[in-house]
């Protein structure tokens, strides 16, 4: 029996991923856990390992394609190679009808509902008119999906056929994993917009047909440096509808560039946060003269221990300790329930600029880790992110975010809150400035910070106090080295 392997559930909120690379070809024999493909999800490039050992019979996807959770990626041949770790693999379709043998002369794909019939390439189906002995469940995610028929009412199944949606690939939101009409429609609108934009990509001239003057340049698509075929997809709507854009071509040549998966995700997240959360920002400055001195003095001893001490680790520690005093900033607002969810853990995200875009890896339990450990973790995490090797777990579960825009200059910035968190700390470049201290003008190193928070959760005074708590800690760095 051929064994289909579908895109596994990647975790909360992630319903699709873009195929970056396919690392195997049809006919390849792969070992269990060997890398099959690379997908770009939310904010990470993830390697998908092979769930079992076997020969790749078919690769159903190609780079640049967006696949939904549950969609079949690769079909493995049955093989003598036993599937390790798959305890109960057998699943006979429990429908009382026998699977019809495929009519032989026409190589026709049968979108059957029964797992081990539908995923079976026709060559095999023709041979095995009898009973299928054993087949592997489609995915490792466990319950329901991939075993037996997809749970949905007959009317929903019909709707799926009408809209050309493969039911097995639809993300179910109904009780007990049931696919609802709305799920099918959502999946259909996703793929419909994709195919329409595909058409647009194939025939870009059509888009330009509205251009009045024949001499006007039609928009060109993609950059010369576009590494792989990007397919343009609309951003997910967030309530307010954007008015149609003017035809820019009437004023001069334009180029249309599809957004990368990451860019789209960032765009959607930022629009969501900016639309939903009433942002308010409080500015302050921390005197980090002493902290700066400590960092400078520690360069040598730190390097001996294989470390580069940076301001960020101190910021992390200071913020985590301040958050413990001001828990409403380590929270999420549950508008529907009318509740504030206070998190009793302090997982802090640090915005990292990569060439592909902004990524926010998360360091866990910042309050409980010594500063040196934070520094070490930060270094390895940032490197993983820059190499595109971060795992989803590296990017999830943050409660508060710090973004350091200091490296690129400027005197301050107002970042957008990383939804659904409640606050974000922006840090600009520390500068030596003249400060009046006890009646004398002295040079001090000042760090401009901005605390942007959800005004639904806290008021200006709370923000000022929370910012002051961070500042106070940054100004007593020796305490930060000891506190955990």
């Amino acid at each position, binding site marked *: 029996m051929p064994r289909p392997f579908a895109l596994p559930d990647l975790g909360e909120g992630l319903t699709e991923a873009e195929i970056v690379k396919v690392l195997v070809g049809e006919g390849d024999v792969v070992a269990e856990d060997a890398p099959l493909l690379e997908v770009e999800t939310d904010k990470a490039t993830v390697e998908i390992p092979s769930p079992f050992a076997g020969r790749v019979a078919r690769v159903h996807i190609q780079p640049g394609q967006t696949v939904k959770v549950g969609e079949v990626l690769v079909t493995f041949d049955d093989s003598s190679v036993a599937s390790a770790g798959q305890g109960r693999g057998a699943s*006979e379709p429990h429908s009382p009808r026998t699977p019809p*043998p495929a009519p032989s002369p026409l190589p026709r794909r049968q979108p059957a509902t029964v797992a081990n019939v539908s995923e079976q390439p026709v060559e095999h189906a023709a041979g095995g008119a009898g009973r299928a002995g054993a087949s592997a469940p489609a995915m490792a995610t466990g319950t329901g999906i991939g075993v037996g028929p997809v*749970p949905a009412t*007959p009317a929903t199944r019909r709707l799926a056929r009408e809209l050309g949606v493969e039911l097995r690939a639809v993300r179910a939101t109904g009780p007990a*994993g049931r696919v609802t009409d709305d799920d099918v429609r959502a999946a259909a609108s996703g793929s419909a917009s994709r195919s329409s934009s595909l058409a647009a990509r194939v025939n870009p001239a059509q888009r330009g047909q509205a251009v009045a003057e024949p001499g006007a340049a039609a928009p060109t698509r993609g950059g010369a440096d576009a590494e792989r075929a990007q397919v343009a997809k609309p951003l997910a709507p967030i309530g307010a509808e954007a008015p149609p854009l003017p035809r820019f071509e009437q004023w001069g040549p334009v180029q249309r560039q599809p957004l990368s998966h990451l860019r789209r995700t960032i765009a959607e997240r930022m629009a969501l946060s900016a639309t939903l959360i009433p942002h308010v920002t409080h500015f302050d400055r921390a005197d980090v003269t002493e902290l700066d001195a400590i960092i400078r003095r520690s360069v040598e001893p730190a390097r001996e221990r294989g470390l580069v001490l940076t301001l960020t680790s101190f910021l992390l520690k200071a913020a985590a300790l301040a958050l413990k005093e001001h828990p409403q900033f380590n929270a999420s607002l549950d508008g529907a329930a009318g509740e504030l969810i206070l998190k009793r853990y302090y997982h802090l995200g640090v915005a990292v600029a990569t060439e592909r875009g902004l990524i926010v890896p998360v360091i866990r339990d910042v309050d409980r880790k010594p500063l040196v450990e934070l520094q070490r973790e930060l270094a390895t995490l940032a490197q993983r992110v820059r190499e595109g090797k971060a795992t989803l777990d590296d990017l999830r579960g943050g409660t508060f975010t710090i973004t350091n825009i200091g490296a690129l200059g400027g005197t301050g910035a107002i970042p957008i809150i990383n939804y659904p968190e409640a606050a974000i700390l922006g840090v600009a470049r520390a500068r030596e400035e003249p400060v009046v201290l006890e009646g004398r003008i002295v040079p001090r190193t000042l760090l401009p910070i901005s605390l942007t928070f959800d005004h639904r959760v806290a008021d200006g005074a709370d923000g000022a106090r929370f910012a002051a708590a961070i500042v106070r800690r940054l100004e007593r760095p020796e305490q930060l080295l000891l506190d955990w």
Partner: protein
Amino acid sequence: MVMGDLVIEVDVAVIGGGPGGYSAAFRCAELGLETVVVDAGKRLGGACLWEGCIPSKALLHVAALIEDATRAREIGVEFGEPHVSLDPLRKWKAERVVGRLARGLASVAKTKGVEVIGGRAVFESSRELRVEGDEPQKIRFKHAIVATGSLPSRVPGLPLESDRIMDSTAALELPEIPERLLVIGGGYIGLELGQVYASLGSVVTVAEMTDGLLPGPDRDLVQPLARRCEKLFAKIRLGTTVTSLTERGSAVEARFGGDAVEAFDRVLVAVGRAPVSAGLGLETTRASVDARGVVAVDERCRTADPAIYAVGDVTGEPMLAHRAMRQGKVAGEVIAGRPAAFDNVVVPAVVFTDPEVAWCGLTESQAQRDGRRVQVARFAWAASGRAATLGRSDGVTKLIADPDTGRLLGAGIVGPGAGELIAEAALAVETALTVEDLAATIHTHPTLSETLMEAAEALLQRS
């Protein structure tokens, strides 16, 4: 008229007027396709109406009346010994039951504009049928739907030529009430008809090749039926092959396995049904037929020939009228360009014996064979108020659920009315309801339908 003189052109030609055929034809006509049905008997209803489901249920109703009257004695109501007059009984079955339904079907066909042509249809190509018989003609079609159904299987080596050796069709004609009847085959047809004849007064022996009655449903559901059969039948020979049948005077001698020989007045051979696909000229089309005569179809009821569809028993097991009817509607819609598919999760099955056995979806034994983990609840009707008032506490309602999601995967019921009760379970499994959905739905009290709710509650309490 010379054959070939008359050529008619239609959108859809349906071959066979049984439940699959007429359902397909009606749906095609509703969707604006010009449709004809070619039926050898020039009638709609097929084996189901004329020699299967309907007449057997009519006779089983009579059997149930007799049994109820007998049981009534235990609760102090005496009707006396029943006296069965075959002529009025046959007349009632033929005219008031089968005849009435047949007239109904004919008038529906007329209303929908579906013409029924009498004769045997043979494919000459993927575009043309030749009709042989009283109304010889040719039909050019855009699409054809093969709905030729099935016929009772014969046992190799056993003759069927004697009047005393009947198949189910002959037995339903009720030629007489034989003193001693041998039923070969312990499946649903043999048990249903065996019970009819036993109730009417025959001394019935059942011979079954395998080691249990009624293959298919879980054994715990068959057990109450088996107990009832043991009382009703003179003898049940399991694991027994009938090796020869010899007519001797007015009796038939049956030889079982090795040596045992017994004489019967009549023999009913009920060893299953076989698809009717031979002699149809399918070899002139691209449709593929396997060695057993089953026409291969896909989910949309399409054969390998793009112009030809097939529905019902001719497409194989389970050979049940309700499956054929659903397939017929699917085929009609697909031909009309609608996004239909026979993607049904369950095809419920009912055995109309006393007690009835009905099941749908996954059975416990199938789950066991698959190594699939399931939760099972059995609710014995001894605890049902309604069953007590009916004097029938021998039923069982059984649910099979997915332990991870609580979704219902299958159900089985044994007891009077099981055939009606299974409908709710079929709806639940087909629509992927959970045990909780079933348990939280109010069921009327006191009814047997409560047993489904009770079984669901038993599952809930365990999780």
